């Protein structure tokens, strides 16, 4: 799976759990929390959706690795390989 695919998977999940957020103009290197109204409950939902939809597990100690879109892609790509 390409980096662009992984990026899109994360964006699709965010759009579903926070339907009011605009995800089209995100800066991939900046914190998602700073750009969107996401709290720790929403990050839990991102993790839960990754497991439910793609059988990808993210242990709790790795939650910080989902901070930006860039770090999401870097961290998740090997799991989708």
């Amino acid at each position, binding site marked *: 799976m390409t980096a662009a695919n992984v990026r899109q998977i994360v964006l699709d999940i965010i759009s579903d*759990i926070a339907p*009011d957020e605009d995800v089209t103009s995100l800066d991939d290197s900046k914190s998602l929390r700073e750009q969107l109204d996401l*709290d720790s*409950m929403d990050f*839990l*939902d991102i993790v*839960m959706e990754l*497991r*439910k939809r793609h059988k990808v597990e993210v242990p*709790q100690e790795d939650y910080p690795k989902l901070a930006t879109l860039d770090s999401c892609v870097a961290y998740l790509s090997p799991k989708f390989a």
Partner: protein
Amino acid sequence: MSQYDAIVIGAGMSGLAAGIRLAMFDKKVVILEKHSIPGGLNSYYQRRNFDKGGIRQFDVGLHALTNFIKKGEKGKPFSKLLKQLRLSYDDFKLCPQTHSKISFPGVELKFSNDFELLQNEVHEKFSSQVDAFNELVEKVRSFNELDLSIGYQSSRDVLKTLIADELLVEMLLCPLLIYGSAWEDDMDFAQFVIMFKSLYFEGFSRPEGGVRTIISLLMKKLDEVGAEVRFKAAVTEIITKDGKAIGVNVNGEELYAPVVLSSIGYPETVRLTKEINIDPQVGKMTFLESIFIFDKKIPLQSQDSTIVFYNNAPEYAYRPATNYFDSTSAVVCFPDNYEPQNREGEGTVRITFMANYHQWRELDRAAYDAKKDEVGDCALKLVKSMMPGFDGNLLFKDIFSPMTIERYTWHLNGTVYGSTDKTRDGRTPVPGLFIIGTDQGFLGIVGSILSGISMANLHGLMREGDS
């Protein structure tokens, strides 16, 4: 024998919300409710109306839904609830209040869903206390009430160090105490902050259709995500093995799960659990509610507030009544004064007095009925004094007592705000058994729903991530 991922005891607001969260992520979950309908302390009931031969339905708890937000507002408790349960703002059909007021001898403070009104009122009526009030507001704003590790701190102590005028302290505390304190005359400062934000910063609304609108939204979502709900399902025992909760006994059947979330109250949960060596206190605060239906709506010139927090005593006494019920203070709700304020049809008023469970329990049937009539007369007199010039006729009245609350919710002693021993992270001494709802410490309908969500997240969903 049936095996689940999680068992939820109680189909009140917290239990329904917890069930939704767990089933949403493919947990096999069952909600067990002793009553024949959902809602718990925020449920509904019906009475035949002999005059008109019809049936009337009444909400039990709901005067107001706190934590009002406008559509699109972010980062607030209500917006978190919508996102976590994937519900839409429009489905709640929220009708905002006009304004409410705190009415003490000689002085009134109005507040609305715009915090500026309360600020202006304090400015006008307690001009010497404006700086102190602003300091309190800043303290509330910056306080992290979601930190589950904070211990008990008396709100009165905190307020008195900031605000010199005791009347202002009493008036600010009054709505917050009676809308959610399990403690007499005081409340935990973390609870005070939650309530201050919920009532004064955010405000009140009511879903069109009342509490049933919320319950049916939650039931529909539960169905969509595939959770099982059983009614008339009385849990008689929480089964433990080697000191851990492993399931429940319900109507003689054993169900097993590694996680049991109980919304029935901390003392009530402990009573069902063997091998548990604690004794959480049963709270003392319980209430009487009178509902009056008139043959026409109360005109706004007679009463334009949505809720009146009334006190006619020199000091506001938030404690069990000494003589069955206390009519020196009350919460009076005029549900017709929510938007859009349709003036057609019947008018409704609801009024709550503090009560004394132990005295009500001693009454025999005849004395109980007579005492209820006395409450009704007293309540009607007070209601009429609040709507001068209103000439409508009383069509119907209904009164429910601490005994009614105990009978239909199984909360010991008819408590409404639960035990004074809260478990803020939901944990009990028994691994696998967790408390959700009022005794976890979040209050009101929005609070209970958030309690169910956050405890399901913490103890039901995140535990696998731990391993």
